[in-house]
Each structure stands twice: as C-alpha cells, then as structure tokens.
C-alpha cells in the first residue's frame, strides 16, 4: 500500500513538473514574440516636433473661394469652399494609397491608379474609394491659416461641421 502511494505521488509530481516545463516553454515563446514585435514597432520620425508639424498656409484672402491649393511639403491640399470655409485634405487616396492630383477642368480630384474621384470637400464621386479623403486639423488665427499635420482625421463622408470658418 505505501509503495503504491509513493508511486502515485511520484506520478503526480512528474506530471506537475512536466506541466511546469510546458508553462516555461510557452512563457519563453511569448517573451520572444513580445521582444520581436516591440523591436519591429515603427519608430516616430525624428522631425516630428510641433514646429515642423505645423504648416503656416498663409493669410485667408490669398485663397479664393472654390479653389484648391497644393502644399507638397505637407502632403495636403488646402480647399476653400464656396461658403468661405477651409478644409485641409490629405492627398492620399483612401482606396490604395496613391497620390490624388486636383484636376481643375473637372473640378475634382481624380486618382490615377484606380480612377476614384473626389469633389472639393473630399467626398467620393466615383468608387472604388470607400470613404472621403482624410482631413488635417486647421486653425485660423489673426486671419492666418495654420494646418496641423500630427494627426489625420478619418471620415466616412463630408459633413458641414468639418469645415473651419474664418469668422
């Protein structure tokens, strides 16, 4: 009887130990993956200080209502709607990331990659683009338009409250 009990004890000890090994193995794997993922995480570009992330677009009366002005260094378009309000539109197509040029003759943005088109507010006129062009935040101070590039605002479609009005 005591012999059998000893065997039983041995067995449970052994199975406990092998479970412990398994646990340690899993922990090792998780740690490895964690290190790998953290190591490969995208780094913030060095230049991202506030000053470089803000673009002074200029005084408001430089932009005609109904006009679109490109800012290549900021990778956006400043659109002034007919009502006088401003929108800073990302130039990246929401379909597959191509750069959309403004085509003044047709009064729309047309993506050269898959022919999506957007109106002056960034709304989709023609699919396959699934949503309106992303926005950057705008601030108007002393009649000077400033655009903040640290964050893009994703949106489904254009709404009036996205517009920044000069007054």
């Amino acid at each position, binding site marked *: 009887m005591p012999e059998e009990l000893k065997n039983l004890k041995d067995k449970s000890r052994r199975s406990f130990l092998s479970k412990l090994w398994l646990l340690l193995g899993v922990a090792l794997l998780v740690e490895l993956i964690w290190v790998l993922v953290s190591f490969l995480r995208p780094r913030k570009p060095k230049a991202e200080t506030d000053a470089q992330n803000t673009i002074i677009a200029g005084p408001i009366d430089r932009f005609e209502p109904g006009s679109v002005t490109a800012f290549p260094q900021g990778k956006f378009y400043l659109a002034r709607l007919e009502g006088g309000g401003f929108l800073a539109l990302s130039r990246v197509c929401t379909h597959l990331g*191509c750069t959309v040029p403004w085509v003044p003759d047709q009064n729309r943005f047309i993506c050269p990659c898959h022919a999506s088109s957007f109106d002056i507010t960034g709304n989709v006129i023609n699919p396959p683009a699934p949503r309106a062009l992303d926005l950057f935040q705008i601030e108007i101070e002393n009649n000077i338009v400033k655009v903040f590039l640290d964050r893009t605002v994703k949106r489904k479609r254009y709404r009036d409250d996205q517009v920044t009005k000069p007054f």
Partner: protein
Amino acid sequence: MPGENLQRDQDSLLRRVWGSVFKGPIVPVDDRQRRRTVLDFLILHIHPPTVPVSTIRYTHTWGLGGMSLVLFLVLALTGILLMFVYRPVPMEAYSSILTLQREVMFGSFVRSIHHWSANFLIIVALLHLLRVYFTGGFHRERQFNWIIGLSLLLLVVLANFTGYLLAWDQLAYWATTIMTSMLAYIPVAGLWLQRTIRGGTGIGAATLTNFFTLHTTIFPVLFVIFMPWHFWRVRKAGGVVLPRQEGEAPSDKPDRANTIPSLVTKELAVALVLLAFVLVFSVLFHAPLDQMANPGMSPNPARAPWYFMGIQELLLHFHPLFAVLFIPITAVLFLVSIPYLKYGDDPGVWFISEKGRRMAVVSATVAFVVTPALVLLDEFFIDLPALMPGLPTEISNGLIPYLLVLGGLTGYYLLLKNKYEASKAEAVQSVFVFLFVSFVVLTIVGVWFRGEGMKLVWPL
C-alpha cells in the same frame, strides 16, 4: 587490417590529404563505384544510388523542380554580387543602380539575370505545382510535402515582391504603395500589419530597410531551411511519384537504373539549357528601370507587379475586404486541403484518367470563356451597389458576388459528379483547373487589357 593502415601512412602527403577529402574516385568507372559515389558526395546525396527507370523520363516531371533549384542558385549568386554595389537608403538606392548599370563591368548584365531569373522562378514554380497536382503527387506520404511546396511558392512570391521595391523607381514605389495599402483592409490587425511592414505610415526609409532585410536575409534563410526539407521528403516518399497508365496497377518493385549516369546527366542537361536560356534572354532584354520614385506623383495607371495583377483585377470587381482577404483565404484553404480530401484513386496517371483529362480541358475552356464574360458584365452592365442601394458595399459588392461565385463552383462540382458521374478526384481536379485558368485570365486582363484609369482597353 593493420597492413592497409601501414600502406596508407607511407603514401605521399598529397595523396593522404586528397584521400581524407574524397573517399572514392572522382570519376567512377563501374556501376558499383557509381552507386558508392552518390552516397559519398554531399550534393549527390539528395538522390538515392538508384532511381526507378520510369521516373527519369523527361516528360514525367519536365525537370521543373530541378529548374526551380537552378534558378534559386542563380538568384543567390547574382544577388550576392548586386549587394556589393547596392545601397539600401532612399536617397542612394536609385543612383546606386544607375552606377551599377553605367560604371560597373557586367553590372547591367548581372541585374538583368537576377531580374529575369526571379520572374522565371515564379512561372517555373507554378508549373511545378501544376505537374505535381496533375500527376497526383500529393497523396499519402506526399501529403505534407505538398504543404511545404506551397510554403516555398509563397516564399518565392514574397521574395520577388520585396526585391521589387529595392530599385526605388516609380514602378516599384507605387506597386509597393498599392500592395501594402491592401493590408489596411484586413479587419482588426490590418493597420498594425501595414505599419509594421512599412515601418511607419508611408513608404520611406524604414520600408526600404525592412524590405532589404527580408529580401537579402530572412527569405534566403527560410529558403535554405525549406528547400532541403522539401527534397528530403521527396526521398522519404521514395522519390517522385511513379508514372503509370490508366488501368495499370501501381507497381511495388519498379525497374531501377543507376542515378549516375541516368538521372544526373539529364539533370545537368536541363540545368545547362536553362542557364543558357536565362543568359541569352538577359543579353537580349534588359531589366526595366523607371524614373526615380516620386512620392508626389502616382503614374497613370499605377500597377502591381504582374503576379499580383490577378488580385488587382479582383479589386476592381469586389469590395477590398473580399478581394484582398476572403477570396485569397478561400483559395489558400482550397490548395491546402487538396491532399487531405479522401479520393480513393491511386496517383501516377496524368489527369487521373482519360475522362479526367477531358473534363479538365472542358473546365479550362469554360473558365476561359466565363471569366472574361463576368469581367465585361461587371464592367459595363451590372452595378451591384446601385441595384441594392440600401445595403453596405461590403455586402452588395462583396458578400453577394462572393457567394454567387462560390455557389456557381459548387454547382459545377455537383453537376460533374452527379450528372456526368465524375469521381471525387476528377470533380475536384475540374474545379482546380477552373480556378487556375480564371486566375490566369484575370492576370492577363490586368497585365494587357487595363489602360489609363484602369479602363478596359484593347492592347496594340
């Protein structure tokens, strides 16, 4: 035998060193020596000393696996040479390639060989997959080797794609933009995956570093692990599948021939002819190089690399969630499940049977007609989202056409099985042929029939 040792010790130094490297003669003269040589030499050791005579016939394997290996070796060699000149940072990458082409002796030639070998490798690996499938080389002991083979095919495509960006020209930059943008449509993990691969929000220096590391280290190492594994499993399965005629029983004890010279000379011939072809091709046609990448201007049309044109074409017809995620996943699941379905047929007969061959031809023809018809229909006549304005486009332009296609394929499968009394293997083969030809047709449409703004055009 102590006498022999004594004799060895008295040999000249040169002879003793030589003998320590090579156990037998370099050029074996009789059959016994030849079989011995196969066992003694590391590289020849991937073969057994003798192989079944019927598997040596060229039209059984078409030498496609061996050709893949030769192309891999050519790519490794030319790739290493290119690394001596190439500089993987955005401001210098493109100019280092110009330097390579203008100032380095044979630079343009080596780049062309690398470029064309990479593209041929995709075609040859795909043909190899077809050969293995149509001779039934995925049953029983070969089941898992089919999966390893699929992994290698994926590696070939990924290695090619990561190499595509390195030239840093317009073609490469925008193809990579488009392909990595597709990842964002994968739910939950997509955006994270895209950022990690790009090393940031856009394609930039971090992306180039990532792709360079993947292309020149990670994927080559994976190849070096997976290829010997693939070859070893071929040997464990007793070599390539034994060919047989319909109605002929699988033979247990096939006639065998010595690997040297019967198999090795054929392999050498295939390797040399392929090498000659690649070299001549690279002399005649230079690897393309577009203008330097300009993130501010997308070319019109911006295209994915040719082997992704099928997916790019799907994107024009399906909601991206389906084009880049659910349809590819379905295709991969189908390919992975192929060896594990229960068939009940023995391998070795091309296209399973004469009936299987006829059905394969019919399926290829049907796919060749139906796929362009569907493309035209969707392009000009049917606008699913407009027909169902109340539904989100994921459903109207995604789930619904996806289910329609899946239903059509299931219907086709059942029709062949029930009305035409196809065996399971024959019916699955027909669906496989249908899907493969459809994919080829979509690729052709994408490569040649899409012009400015991705409109359908007639190529001239």
